[in-house]
């Protein structure tokens, strides 16, 4: 009797196995990318959001993109890098013979339409302020667009990167709601289905201008919980998962099924020292001292297991405009104490509050605690306050943080997007600004000439280094868990462009 029951149970379990999707040849199944959330919209050029943009670009393609290491701008839907015959004119030449998924031809009209769409306030596009400097646009021929700007706007070069293009005829005839529900682009993948909060299904576009994608069907699956995302990789369901925590690297490697592929991201992490409020942090010597007091290298080695790259200043090592001559502040606690005393303070009487997010950046809370403990060694008492992300951001925006806060910034592959966004006094993400710095930044922004521009940003980085507005930390490494049967390498610009992926041939 018992034996029969057991046999039945085993049969039942085997039945379950039989019913599970049978493992098929790799080529037949979709490539699955597990993400934490669904796109906020599938309308091109509407929302600035990593998760949203990374899915959209597979459908729409982009004018330019960051390629290689260190990343440089390359044309994709454009035919060549933009020309600037004078400081106010931009000529964009487009790739011939490109068609949208519905057969509509791609060209200067489409790019012009996309610009007009995003500049129309009714469409509530996040990109509108970015391109507010556009004065007029003219289609010179079907593949050439001329843009005139109100003022010199060299940043345009970077805003055109990852610029996705919509099909004008389609959007005009079906309207925004339908166009975002059923998107048509010129990218390597066509839209198939979007099950809300479940999956976005795409299939290869055989007419893609570049060679047709090697992987025929892809799926973005939305798994909000990180452990579950990792489990889906380890179970062989997901093929690509972003942000494997350093502590889980061994687990992925041991699985035999997947591996961790890392890349030094352009995203930087820093500890901002707030100089807006009166107090010791308004003294440059104290800020420098804090840089000397923390052994950043040791944190990178021990806490991050080497999976972070130290930066000496405000820009990552792969930033186009990074000043290569800066060297990180050495670890020198004695000098730190000396500097603080010079500034007229007793380190053992200093008390700071450090606001940290938890889980937003790799090991953010742990890093904050490590920094606090280094400062504790020279007598400074630091209270670490861990915030839920929304609260953290709210505190920073409304300047309600403690004297220090932990934050990340990126992708940042050129200087203006970081320095001008962070170090002008009306910006709150760095907690730092001086009139002198603002002056230099405002001088650098309109410089169109690439060499002069480079020199200006280099100078500002030296100023920042000396001012020590942050404890300069590191560029984070993006760790992707990738199934071994997938040929795909992560890129510092944090893109998941699946045209680059292939199945490994066995």
């Amino acid at each position: 009797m018992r034996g029969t029951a057991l046999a039945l149970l085993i049969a039942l379990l085997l039945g379950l196995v039989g019913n599970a999707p049978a493992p098929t040849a790799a080529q037949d199944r979709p490539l699955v990318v597990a993400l934490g959330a669904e796109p906020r919209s599938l309308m091109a050029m509407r929302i600035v959001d990593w998760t949203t943009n990374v899915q959209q670009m597979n459908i729409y393609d982009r004018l330019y993109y960051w390629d290689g290491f260190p990343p440089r701008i390359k044309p994709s839907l454009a035919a060549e890098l933009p020309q600037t015959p004078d400081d106010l004119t931009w000529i964009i030449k487009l790739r011939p013979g490109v068609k949208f998924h519905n057969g509509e031809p791609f060209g200067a009209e489409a790019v012009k339409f996309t610009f007009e769409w995003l500049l129309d306030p009714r469409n509530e596009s996040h990109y509108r302020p970015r391109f507010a400097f556009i004065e007029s646009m003219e289609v010179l021929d079907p593949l050439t667009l001329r843009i005139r700007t109100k003022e010199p706007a060299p940043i345009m070069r970077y805003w055109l990167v990852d610029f996705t293009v919509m099909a004008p005829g389609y959007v005009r005839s079906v309207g925004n709601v339908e166009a975002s529900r059923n998107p048509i682009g010129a990218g390597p993948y066509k839209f198939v289905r979007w099950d809300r909060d479940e999956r976005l299904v795409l299939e290869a576009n055989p007419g893609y201008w570049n060679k047709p994608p090697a992987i025929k069907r892809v799926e973005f699956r939305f798994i909000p919980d990180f452990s579950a995302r990792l489990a889906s990789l380890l179970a062989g369901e997901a093929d690509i998962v972003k942000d494997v925590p350093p502590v889980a690297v061994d687990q992925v490697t041991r699985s035999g099924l997947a591996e961790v592929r890392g890349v030094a991201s352009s995203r930087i992490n820093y500890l901002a020292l707030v100089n807006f409020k009166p107090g010791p942090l308004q003294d440059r010597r104290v800020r420098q001292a804090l840089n000397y007091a923390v052994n950043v290298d040791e944190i990178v080695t021990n806490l991050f297991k080497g999976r972070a790259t130290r930066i000496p200043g405000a820009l990552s090592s792969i930033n186009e405009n990074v000043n290569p001559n800066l060297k990180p502040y050495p670890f020198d606690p004695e000098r730190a104490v000396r500097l603080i005393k010079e500034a007229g303070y007793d380190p053992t009487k200093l008390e700071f509050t450090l606001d940290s997010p938890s889980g937003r950046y790799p090991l953010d809370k742990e890093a904050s605690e490590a920094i606090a403990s280094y400062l504790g060694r020279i007598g400074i008492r630091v209270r670490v306050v861990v915030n839920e992300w929304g609260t953290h951001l709210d505190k920073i925006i409304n300047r309600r943080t403690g004297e220090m806060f932990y934050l990340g910034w990126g992708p940042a592959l050129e200087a203006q997007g970081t320095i001008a966004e962070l170090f002008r006094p009306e910006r709150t993400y760095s907690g730092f600004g001086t009139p002198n710095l603002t002056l230099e930044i405002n001088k650098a922004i309109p410089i169109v000439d690439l060499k002069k521009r480079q020199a200006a940003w280099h100078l500002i980085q030296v100023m920042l280094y000396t001012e020590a507005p942050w404890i300069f930390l590191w560029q984070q490494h993006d760790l992707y868990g990738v199934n071994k049967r997938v040929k795909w390498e992560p890129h510092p610009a944090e893109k998941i462009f699946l045209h680059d992926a292939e199945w490994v041939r066995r």
Partner: protein
Amino acid sequence: MLQFIARRLLEALVVVFLALTVVFALQFLAGDPVKLFLPTDTTQKEIEEFRERLGFNDPWIVQYARFLRGAFRGDFGNSLRQQEPALALVLLRLPATLSLSGVAMLLALTIAIPVGVISAARRNSWFDHLGIGATVLGQAIPGFWLGLMLIYVFSVWLRVLPTGGRGTWLHFIMPSITLAAFVAARFARLTRSMMLDVLGQDYIRTARAKGLAPLRVLYKHALKNASLPIVTLLALQLGQLLGGAVITETIFAWPGVGRFLVQALLNRDFPVVLVGVFLTAVLYSALNLVADMAYAWLNPRIRYE
């Protein structure tokens, strides 16, 4: 009976209205949502324009009036993050939640009621002790832990079940077990203690003395009389499940209401949050109404009063 229902409906209306008002008021304490959904490089001027367009700059009384007028017509405005009608976004996720809660509740009751009844009938037997032990465990194990363990055992290790998502009946197994574990434990304990009470009553002894079949005594006479609190718990528990089994939905990537609402809450997507509160209040009120009607059916004394 009709009057009874009408009165309860009116009460439900008041409950929904109050819930909405409270949440509407709370959103002013939660901080500014605008900067959370706009990109970080948006200028102050642009942020002001957004705020103006969304009506956040109006006096609260104007905002409240506009909100009530919209809510009355089923228009809660657009989601701040996704720029689509908030009500539609939430309703889209309702079937997923309904099906999962339904299956989980069915599973829980199928296990819990017999376990409770048998434990009570065979008090202090090995079955009773085992049952009690299991229910303590069921209530003590946190849902997220159980969920992850199931995933690791059945998906990662044995590879017989999908880690999450929806699609086939296989996708229901782990999330409904995770949900049912806790619920079943509560029901089993409640059933057992109610049955113990009832089984000590005179009319049960009488029924037995008359020579009725033991099973008939147990289920027809005892269980029916013990079932009032069980129905109450059922209504409450269903309300909780429908409001969204947040943790289970998150871990198993189940595209339900709870997971969506918590994301909305974290992102301060107020229109979505308000829709969530509205639906939850409506569901709770409806379930309570049904529970009250069920009492009347189960216990004629309530009907006659």
